[in-house]
């Protein structure tokens, strides 16, 4: 199968933290990887970022690495796969290659920007801003009136695929936006406030309506 490389801004990877990084306090962004025919990752490139979301390490999931695919990815980046062995090492062990890691991470970020559709880029930029600036809030008014959240609602149905993809990756407060865009509310009233049930209801709705 010809490797294909897509990029996803995914905030998951808790197992990745636990198993390979040992730094559960740092977020991991998945930037790309080889997908199978069902759209699942066979392998992936990921970047470890600091609290300011600056890339500080880069790696490829070691247990399912397809070396040829990785090489192709780095060939596309016009550089060498010198850092794909980083997972599993401590950050201190990464230090000697710090400059190379930053270079690769920066190139991957650039690569990511070049391969995403403009609307997806806009969604992700607003979603990042919204999440960063409202995650510490409980006030629904403050959360949903954030300019980036309103901009995503303003994208209309075109945003639904991205919202559902984001919701699949991690529960986030997309419920108001989904309700506003679709005019639907598939959540059972008895599940009010129960996040896992609300997410399940919306994902079921998304599948039934072809957004997932």
């Amino acid at each position: 199968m010809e490797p294909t490389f897509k990029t996803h801004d995914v905030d998951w990877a808790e197992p990745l933290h636990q198993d390979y990084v040992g730094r559960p306090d740092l977020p991991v962004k998945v930037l790309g990887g080889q997908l199978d025919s069902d759209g699942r990752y066979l392998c992936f490139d990921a970047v470890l970022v600091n609290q300011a979301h600056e890339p500080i390490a880069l790696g490829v999931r070691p247990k399912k690495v397809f070396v040829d695919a990785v090489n192709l990815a780095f060939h596309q980046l016009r550089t060498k796969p010198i850092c794909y062995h980083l997972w599993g090492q401590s950050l201190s062990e990464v230090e000697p290659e710090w400059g190379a890691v930053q270079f690769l991470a920066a190139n991957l970020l650039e690569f990511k920007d070049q391969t995403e559709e403009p609307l997806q880029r806009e969604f992700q930029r607003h979603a990042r801003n919204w999440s960063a600036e409202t995650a510490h809030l409980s006030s629904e008014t403050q959360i949903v009136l954030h300019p980036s959240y309103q901009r995503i609602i303003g994208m209309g149905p075109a945003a639904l695929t991205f919202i559902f993809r984001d919701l699949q990756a991690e529960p986030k407060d997309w419920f108001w936006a989904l309700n506003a865009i679709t005019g639907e509310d598939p959540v059972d009233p008895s599940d009010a406030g129960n996040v896992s049930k609300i997410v399940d209801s919306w994902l079921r709705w998304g599948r039934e309506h072809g957004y997932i």
Partner: protein
Amino acid sequence: MADLLSLFGNLTPQNHKVTSPETLNYNCVAWAAEDVYRRWWPSANSRIHYWPSGIPRQETVEVFVRAFVRLGYAPCDSRELEEGYQKVALYISSAGIPTHMARQMDSGKWTSKLGTLEDIVHESLECLEGKDYGSVFRILKRKRR
């Protein structure tokens, strides 16, 4: 993990401690009400957040007070620890809109759920006052159960 010190100007490494992982499963009001299974807010959309039945879904101080009166609380003047009583605090924005709630612990320190982030224990209510949470406007208390 978010950088809490950059989000809350009064927070220091010495005056707070993170006590849980991040979760969307409950929020500050739910945490104040000791419910970790639902998010509480007087949302206009009645399915996104739980809110006690019969109490209006409006973001006003009165509505929040009524919800906690339902739980046995009554307004009081002091934020100091009182033997045998549990207290909660309501923060409001400069516009008078409720923004946050905290609950007093047996030690006299306070515990807060920070939106979708972690729970923390903080030395005082002032630790979370600032541009986003505003300031404490109301204290309520009830007998410890």
